[in-house]
Every structure is written in C-alpha cells, then in structure tokens.
C-alpha cells in the first residue's frame, strides 16, 4: 500500500516536471529508502552475560526531498526543499512527517550584486571559515563505505568544506582597467544562536572577502570572519562574546612552457574577547598565524606538487575554521547499550560514517573535545592552534584516469609546550592510489582497485610518556560484472596505541587541567555486496558490513556488529 503511494507520488512529480519544463517552475529531487538489520555477534564481550540490552536492531525509512524552484527570470530564484520522511513501521502515510529542509532566495540586483538569503553554504579560507573533513574519511575508501558517508554528508549539508548556516550573502565583481584587472567582493552575515530574550543574546557570524586580481601574475585578498553577541537583545546580559579573525592572502603566478608555478600564502590574527558578565570574568587575547608555500603544476599532465610552511599561534582562535564536524564524544545510536545497560558502546570509525548522532552542524565558540586516536596532529584542521611545521603534497591523475595517486605529509610540532616546556612532535601522512584497471585493459565496464593509508605519530617527553601512534588502511574493489551491475567490496582497518596527556579547556579556551590518555584499540570494517545502477543518479545496493572493535585496555569494550544494509537512492 505504502509503495503504491510512493509510486503515485513519483509519477505525479515526473508528469508535473514534464508539464512545467518550459515554465519558471522546475523540480529537483532526492529520494532514498534504507533498511538496515544489525546484530551483535554473540561472542562480543560488550554484551557478555547481558540480559537487559538490545542485541539486534532493525531500522528502515523512506525519505524524499522535493526541491521546488521558482525562477521567473535570470535575476531571481526561490528554492525550497520539502522533505517527506517515513519510518518503516510507522502507520503508512499517517506515520510520515513533512518538514522544510531548505529555503533559499537568490538573485542579482541591478545586474551587479548577487545576493542570497536563507539556508546557504558559507566558506572562506582554511583559517577563517572552513568545515574540515572527518580524519577517518579517505578518498580511497570502498564504494560501499562511500555510499554510507555520502548519506551523512547529504543529511548534514556537508558540501565539501562549507558550513550550512542561515543568513544573507552579497557579492559583486568590479572590473578596473589600469593597475587592477578586477575586484571581487563578498559579504555575509548569519545568526548562529538566537536570543531567548532573557539572558542569551543573539550571536552573529559575519564576514567577507575581497579578491583583487592585479594581473595574471598577482592576486591579493583579505578575509574577515567574526562572531559577536549583539548587545541589547536580552534583558539580563550574562555573557558577551566576540572573536574577529582578519587575514590577508596572496598568489603569485608564473607559467613556463611546461609548468605553472605559484607562490601562495595567508597570514592573519584573531582578536578574542569573552566576558562572563554575571561572573565578572573577562578574557581578551590576540594571536596570529601565517602560511607560505609554493606549488608546481604540469601544464599537460595531471601532476602537481606543493610545499608549505605554517605557524599557528597557541591562542589563535577561529571558531569558523576550528569547529569540528564530528562529536568525538558522541554516543552512537545503533545498539549502544551493553554491560546490562550500565555502559555505552564506544564510538568507532563505523559510527563516524553511518550515524547522524555524532555529527555537529553548528559553530562552536569553544574548542571542542577530540579523541587523540583519530587526529592528534590537526584536530581543528589547518587552523589547529599551537602548531608549526612543513606540509608536502603531491598528486597525480584524477578519479577517472588510469592512475590516481596522492600523498600528503605534515611534519609538525607545538609552538609552545603544554603544561611544561617540552614540545610534542607530530607526523601525519595520508595517501592512496586508485587504479582504474578497465582503462588499462581497455574495457568499458568498471573495474577499479584502490588502497589508502593514514598514519599519525605523536612523540613527546618520555618522562610524561607521550608516544601515540595510529594507522588507518583502506582497500577497495569495484567490479562491474554485468552491465550496470557492480560487485563492491572493501576493508577499513584502524589501529591506535600509546599514551598522551589530554588538555582540558574551560569556556575561555584556557587549558586548566589534564588527563592521562591511554589507547590500544583495533577497529575493522569489512564490507561486500552488490550495486545496480539504473542511471548515473539512481542505484540500488545491498551490502553486508561487519565491524569490530577491540580494546586491549578495557576488554569489555570489545564487540562485533554485523549489519545488512539495503539502499535505494535516486536523484533528478
């Protein structure tokens, strides 16, 4: 019965789409039906002698996002996305809920100024406004894992490294003639916390960017990303927060017959001011950063090489760039109770690619907690405070070429020691390779092999016993055995062991305490299954995932979960 409703709905959308093809109204859509059946392995120590916790879970839902676009002319467009969501087991259509997922207005004023209002994606540079990837993500991971991660990215509006926020954006480009070719201007303002009219003031994130193209040889720019409470929006002011980041950047270009050369850099400062009015405590601080590098690109081959050096001060605070995408302390939603309901399951790499509960969508003004096993070198992205060092990056090919390979190595250290003078040193190396075998053997059908690696090392004072290592490996196979019918499989392996001292910060980002951190964990994801591609934007996949976690320090944290996952995804 429910399927019949859905088919009617899709048919209605298709017919309407055809009818309105020439009208100012057009539709886009994204639909998804998911079912997962999960169960603990009976030998999991986490549920040993457990008589109260759930050992199995069957979940499923159908979701359809209908994008309605009204574009009466080239200078104006309204977009809204309506979401119909139905949990399987809900009472057919009455068990569904309907909500607005997105509302946008975009247009151009006087053919000069573009504007956007509503739910928009915002981003500037890595030091001002940037949503860094989860460190467990790899572009070389298996297709089945990519399907799961794409769902998380879609649900959390993680479009590359942008933040999805609600506000207004203005932009324009001015062309000059004599000394300057063009000037591009962008400004935006969003509200990240609404006032409760009592003691929480409105908090705005605002900023802008200017890009001055002097010639094909030189581009300079400036960025501002600020967050500020708005005084007067509450009766009783309890806190006042303000943080402004101002940066400048440059690009110097030169091209020979064979290579393109570029020198680039960015430098700037943050100005932090947090006043807890009710407690009469105010902290003001300022600190800076700079990054300078060089890049080499072959003009005719997909090869590029980059090297840069950066210093980020210990008190450089840029919430727009330092806020983390994942709550490392988030409790997983799937089969999370164990030990007779007394304990919650540890978050694993599997949860980080499948569980909405651990994803963060808002800008945090205090440096968020992070788990050192996943990323100790750059937990807050390139803007991680108290880091300096060298980055080397090399890349060859692209995802459609016979060979695609990339490697990135960061050799970093702390600018100042934490808690004592000795400084930590970090090595972070990531990379991988994809071989599109079908291009090699000149076969039309897909046949790709990939492997990826992420290695991280933290070294520090031996008296403080700082020595932490982690390794993540990916392997993937995609093989189109029948036309549009793929076998997809892969492995993700993660291990971390060692010891470190974790800093605990107060609301002012000050390090006030420490805790000893020890780890000896291993996590695996094995996946295999099939995918049928109806078109480039529509597929069905059926996969089995087996994920396990073992903890040599706390054996009761060990578990194995087996999950059957079926997904039907369509876009138009």
């Amino acid at each position, binding site marked *: 019965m429910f399927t019949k409703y859905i088919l009617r709905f899709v048919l209605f959308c298709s017919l309407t789409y055809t009818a309105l093809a020439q009208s100012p109204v057009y539709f886009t859509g994204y639909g998804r039906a998911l079912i997962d059946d999960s169960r603990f392995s009976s030998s999991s120590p986490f549920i040993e002698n457990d008589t109260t916790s759930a050992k199995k879970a069957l979940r499923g839902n159908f979701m359809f996002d209908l994008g309605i676009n009204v574009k009466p002319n080239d200078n104006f467009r309204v977009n809204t996305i309506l979401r119909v969501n139905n949990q399987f087991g809900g009472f057919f259509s009455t068990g569904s809920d309907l909500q607005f997922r997105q509302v946008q207005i975009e247009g151009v004023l006087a053919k000069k100024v573009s504007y956007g209002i509503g739910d928009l994606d915002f981003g500037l540079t890595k030091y001002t406004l940037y949503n860094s990837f989860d460190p467990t993500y790899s572009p070389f991971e298996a297709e089945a894992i990519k399907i799961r991660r794409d769902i998380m990215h879609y649900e959390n509006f993680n479009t590359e490294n942008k933040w999805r926020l609600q506000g207004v954006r203005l932009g324009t480009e001015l062309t000059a003639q004599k000394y300057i070719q063009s000037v591009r201007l962008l400004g935006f303002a969003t509200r990240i916390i609404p006032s409760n009219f009592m003691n929480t003031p409105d908090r705005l994130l605002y900023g802008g960017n200017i890009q001055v193209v002097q010639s094909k040889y030189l581009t300079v720019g400036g960025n501002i990303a600020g967050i500020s409470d708005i005084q007067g929006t509450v009766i009783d002011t309890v806190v006042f927060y303000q943080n402004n980041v101002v940066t400048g950047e440059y690009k110097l270009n030169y091209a020979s017959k064979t290579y393109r050369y570029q020198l680039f850099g960015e430098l700037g400062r943050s100005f932090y001011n947090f006043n807890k009015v009710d407690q009469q405590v105010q902290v003001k601080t300022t600190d800076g950063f*700079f990054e300078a590098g060089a890049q080499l690109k072959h003009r005719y081959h997909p090869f590029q090489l980059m090297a840069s050096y950066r210093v980020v001060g210990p008190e450089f605070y840029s919430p727009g760039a330092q806020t983390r995408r994942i709550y490392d302390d988030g409790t997983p939603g799937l089969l999370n109770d164990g030990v007779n309901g007394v304990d919650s399951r540890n978050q694993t790499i599997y949860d980080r690619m499948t569980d909405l509960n651990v994803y963060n969508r808002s800008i945090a003004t205090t440096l968020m907690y992070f788990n050192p096993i996943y990323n100790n070198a750059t937990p807050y992205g390139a803007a991680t405070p*108290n880091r300096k060092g060298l980055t080397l990056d090399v890349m060859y090919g692209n995802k459609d070429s016979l060979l695609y390979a990339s490697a990135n190595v960061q050799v970093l250290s702390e600018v100042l*020691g934490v*808690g*004592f*003078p000795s400084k930590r040193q970090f090595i972070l190396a990531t990379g991988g390779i994809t071989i599109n075998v079908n291009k090699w053997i000149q076969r039309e059908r897909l046949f790709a092999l990939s492997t990826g690696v992420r290695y991280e090392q933290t070294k520090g004072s031996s008296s403080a*016993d700082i020595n932490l290592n982690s390794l993540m490996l990916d392997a993937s196979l995609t093989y189109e055995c029948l036309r549009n019918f793929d076998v997809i499989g892969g492995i993700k392996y993660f291990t971390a062991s060692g010891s470190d001292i974790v800093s605990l910060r107060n609301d002012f980002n000050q*390090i*006030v305490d*420490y805790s000893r951190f020890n780890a000896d964990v291993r996590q695996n994801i094995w996946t295999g299954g099939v995918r049928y591609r109806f078109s480039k934007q529509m597929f069905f996949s059926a996969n089995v995932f087996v994920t396990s976690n073992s903890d040599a320090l706390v054996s009761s944290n060990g578990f194995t979960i087996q999950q059957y996952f079926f997904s039907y995804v369509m876009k138009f």
Partner: protein
Amino acid sequence: MKNIMYFFFAALILFLNCKQYNQEFIGAPLGIATDNFEVVGNSFQPSAPSVNVFNQTMYFQSTFTENVSWTIKLKGRTSSAVKTIKGTSPFLDMTNAIWDGSADSLRLFLQNETIDATLTVFGWSSSLTTSFTLAQGRNHGLVLGRFESINKFSSISFQDTYFWFSQFEANEMVFNDTIFDAFAPQGRRAYRINGNDANNSFYIGKLGLSPDPANYFAVGSSVPTDVYFNLFVKGEGVASNGKLVIETFEDDNQNNIQDYTGAEDKYSYEILVNYDGWKLHTIRYSNFSKVSSGGNNNKEPHLIKNIGYFIALNSLSGSKNVNVLIDYPTISVGGPMVP
C-alpha cells in the same frame, strides 16, 4: 614589479606583528613526576576509616617527594557513584584534598557503603588505593523519597512522609510503582508513573506526598526565594509528549486541613520531559505559578501541606502515553541540591 614589492613589505610588517611568547609553556603547570618521585612511606590514607561528611571534614593524607599533579578517584562499591579530586602540591592534607561527599555523576554516594579511593600522579606509573566507609552522607536538605523498596506501599513511611497516588480518570494509570533502573541516581530503584490519557483530558495521574497529618513539611525556611525543589527525572526522548508537574498545597489558614477546593494557595511548576535519560531538575519555589483561585497569594513554603508529582500530556495531538521515572525528591534551602 613595484606593486609586488609593496605587497611583500606589507606582508613583512604583518609577519613582524606576530605575537612574541614570553612564557615557556601554555596552560596550567602539568606537575609531572620525575623518575625519582616517591610517595613517602607509600602512605595514602583517609582522615578516618569511617567518615561523616554531613558535619565533619573528610580529607586524604599523603606526602610526596616532589611538587606534582595528583588525582584521587573515588568510586562507591554499591552505588558506582564517582568523584574526582585533583590538585598540584607536594602533599595531601585538609587544605587541598577535601571531599565534601559530592559526586561528579548524577548518581549519588550511598550511606554506609564502602568507597574505594585511588591516588595517581602524572608521570608516575604506580598508584595507591585505600578504602573507607561513608557513615553519613552529604546534606541534601529534606529528603522526600528514596524509592528503594520493591513494594511501593512499604515505602510509605520514608522520611516521615506519607505517600499515595491517584488517577484523574479510572484506569488511566498503568504503573505506579518502584522499578529497577540501572542508572537510577540514588540507589538502584526509582518511582515509575506511567499511564494513558484515555479521555483526552491532559491529566493522567499522580504521586502525592504528605507529612504527618499534624505537621507541615519541615522545609526549613519561610522565604520562597530560598527554597529549592530538587528532583531527578528520567525522560524517554524528544518524541515523548509528556510533562511532569510539581504541585504544592499550602494551608493558608493553618487549620491543619488540606483544602482541595481551591480556597487556599496551590502552586505548580511544569517540567517538559522531552529528553532522554536522567536529569536533575532544581526549581526555586519563587518560580512556581499560582494555580488555585483562592488563597492569600503569598508563597509560604513552611505551610506546605501536600506535594504532588503528576504526569500529563504536553499536547493532545501527540502520543497519549506518558512514562516518567522520578527519584530522590528533596527540598533544599539556600541553593540547589548538589549531587
């Protein structure tokens, strides 16, 4: 080229503007023990083998050979309540290693339970453990209920408080009993109020508490801004459509007879239980709202004759079923209850 030179000069000025760091490190001193570190005599002791934190000072004693960052972790063997005490010093004594009976978790330490204390020091691979008995716990104010008995009726005499329940319509209450809950903040059981609003009246049922008929609740203050109602409440997530209402009945004319007709003051406070897990709610009596039409309109906590905890629907359009667990209702004076 001239423009490029200007740019580099500007960049250089900005670069030179970078902060100069005068300190050797950031953050609080870590206090790492060296290889020569020792705890003198390997001695780590509580101030007494049986401690009373209600009216005495409880502390730990030890002496170190260095100024180090130390941590004492307490864990109740029965309650699993935990508390961490930290500091940086070359010794432990009553100036820096005091325990006031509080817990870091929502779970409370229990009277007469054995508590294990473990001392660790940054950079020191060993640890020392001691244990003691909590003879008398922290002062949480007037305790109205503990709900530790399996038979709810045997709980009637807890803390000299009378206990009863009622439902607003027949058969709407499904459960009103004590129930085992692994995460119950106090002990291992909590009180369950569960029902179904069959007649769409919002109201389902309640747990009522009364002091001895001849007395009022021994709140300890007549100033409503000084009096706090504390209560642990467990919710069932955002999909829950329930709320818990705390209501108080005052005996304005002091005739020792509770009036239910609205002729005397009745106040209430609503808690929306749309969250998952246990939470401690603390409500100042001055924030309660007047419900009855009669009465003298003065909040008089010392004249409270009856306290009710009832469940109701938040909205008629949602689920009709409400399931709430409550534990350890108390009344404190001068500030919220600290677990």
